[in-house]
């Protein structure tokens, strides 16, 4: 029980919003779990993060980035150490994000918190260690190794993966995120195809 409590306790900086929310917690939890698809939050599916519209700019920019086929949100934003570490971070984020979201207090321009930087930085390094340290690759950029240990990678690689323009209103249309409205084959067309001969002429 003590451990569970500790598990749910957010770090210091979050104490204020956490306390304010405590009262509403009980009633809101159930609602919140269902509404925000909190269950899916525990998966690595980027759609889980994009359940919130405020994550849409990040989702769409990631979706159009060089990393789409290689790294999902959690690959970068969640520590990839032990299982415990991983889910601890998810639970904390989930708690924090849904709190802010429901309070309608999200800022126009979301910014990554400094203490999350290190998580992301470590993840860049996790995948790119070889490239960043390989002798051959060193010739790509002067003092790459030195720079990469003194700066955040994305200070140079500014387009990775969200690009430079990150405001909430930079991306307008949300129909693009897959969900319940998937209609790959529209109904009006299906009705003709069901009795189509050409469907099964083998």
């Amino acid at each position: 029980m003590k451990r569970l409590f500790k598990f749910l306790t957010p770090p210091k900086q979050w104490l204020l919003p956490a306390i304010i929310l405590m009262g509403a917690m009980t009633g809101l939890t159930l609602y919140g779990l269902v509404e925000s698809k909190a269950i899916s939050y525990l998966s690595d599916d980027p759609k889980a993060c994009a359940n919130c519209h405020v994550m849409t700019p990040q989702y769409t920019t990631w979706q159009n980035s060089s990393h789409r086929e290689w790294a999902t949100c959690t690959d970068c934003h969640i520590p990839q150490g032990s299982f415990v570490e991983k889910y601890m971070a998810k639970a904390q984020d989930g708690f924090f994000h849904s709190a802010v979201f429901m309070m309608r207090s999200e800022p126009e321009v979301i910014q990554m918190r400094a203490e999350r930087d290190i998580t992301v930085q470590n993840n860049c390094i996790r995948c790119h260690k070889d490239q960043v340290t390989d002798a051959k690759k060193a010739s790509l950029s002067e003092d790459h190794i030195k720079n990469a240990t003194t700066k955040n990678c994305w200070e140079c690689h500014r387009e990775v993966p969200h690009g430079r323009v990150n405001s909430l209103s930079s991306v307008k249309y949300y129909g693009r995120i897959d969900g319940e409205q998937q209609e790959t084959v529209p109904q009006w067309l299906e009705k003709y195809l069901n009795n189509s001969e050409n469907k099964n002429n083998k």
Partner: protein
Amino acid sequence: TERKMEAKYAYTPLNNIKKLDPRNEVWGENFPREFESYYRTADTTFSSKYNSASKVDYLEKYPEFVVLWAGYGFSKDYNSGRGHVHAIDDLHNTLRTGGPTGSEDGPMPSTCWTCKSPDVPRLINDIGVDAYYKGKWSSKGSQVVNPIGCANCHNEKSMKLTITQPALIEAFQRQGKDITKATHNEMRSLVCAQCHVEYYFKSDIPGKEGIAYLTFPWDGGDTMEDMEKYYDNVKHVDWVHSLSKAPMLKSQHPDYEIYKMGIHGKRGVSCADCHMPYKTEGGQKFTDHHIQSPLNNIANSCQVCHKQDKDELIKNVFDNQDKIAANRQELEKLLVRAHVEAKKCWDLGATEAQMKDILQGLRLGQWRWDFVASSHGGSFHAPVEMGRVLGKGINITQETRIKLAKLLMTLGHKGDVPYPAIETKAAAQKFIGLDMSALKEEKEKFKKELLPKWKAEAKAREAKY
């Protein structure tokens, strides 16, 4: 829940788009950035080494094409594709669609409209698939007027990507695949696969005889060999070559099939990644609907993934294209030779039995050539496969010419059959016996008489939406 709905549609008032509305301008009111960029496909100024946004007259550039397609519509007129907004105009203007004078007239079926307009899904929804395919091209002249657009690829409610092409869904079904299981990223290529694929008109579907039913020949797979086997099985013949009498196949833009065999396709890079990259304008991000050669937009397309110089990336593309073009042009000439040699054999009294293998060789050799020639992006999308296909095409064609050489000597012919004088399109068309002035005349008449009527009728009809 309100908060969630707001989340989904926060900035998108979608109330005024009707189901399957074919008018791009109407969608454009809601989505000005996408519409404006779409409309930039009107721009015809860009040209790269091998492709162009303008109408390059391929028959002028490669007069051999005229001979290879002797007896078929493509020998009359064939140009490089332009941007999507030109689709209807180009279909009106091509000599291939002839000069219909009424609604039951002209060389082409209704089916030709299929990949040119969002009026097609609208019509299919209204009158059904069979009725849509039925009849002459001219029968739907006043119905199909809006160039390729939003309703071809989007659901008007959710703006999600959607497949409106029956032939694509059916092709998946016949392969036992379920297109509704496609991922979002696959959809970013499948919307293109609605049109940028090899096709034929199947006219022997039981109960639908005489209807030119649009069909993708993928039942046994979609490699060059798979499709050839399919056509051989169903004994499909697109046309009989007027010089050699060979039972020919025509390949048309197998872009999607070829793309899948290249490294980008294998790595999950979608058509939209290169041809519709994400773009930032005035602090807004959106999908660039100016579908065009990515070489006119390296920064937003290639350089998302590749950090090389623009010039180096362009050179990579040209290097691949050069290597493929060299052998393709070689094969063109061999095929011209083979057709005229076959004609010479007939002229000298060859029998069907003597010609049988030769004609099949011409069919298979030219199919390989056309598979490469008709996919304008293929030499970049999957260069290794294009090289393989050309190697096979050269081999089959030359093996056929060995048979021809022997048969010619058996028939008493001495020396080489001279290469025809086809330095220009006009010379080549004369050589195959095309009366171009008659074709041009009937087209002019159509444009002066029938076409304005179609447009007027359409205007009246659309005013009532």
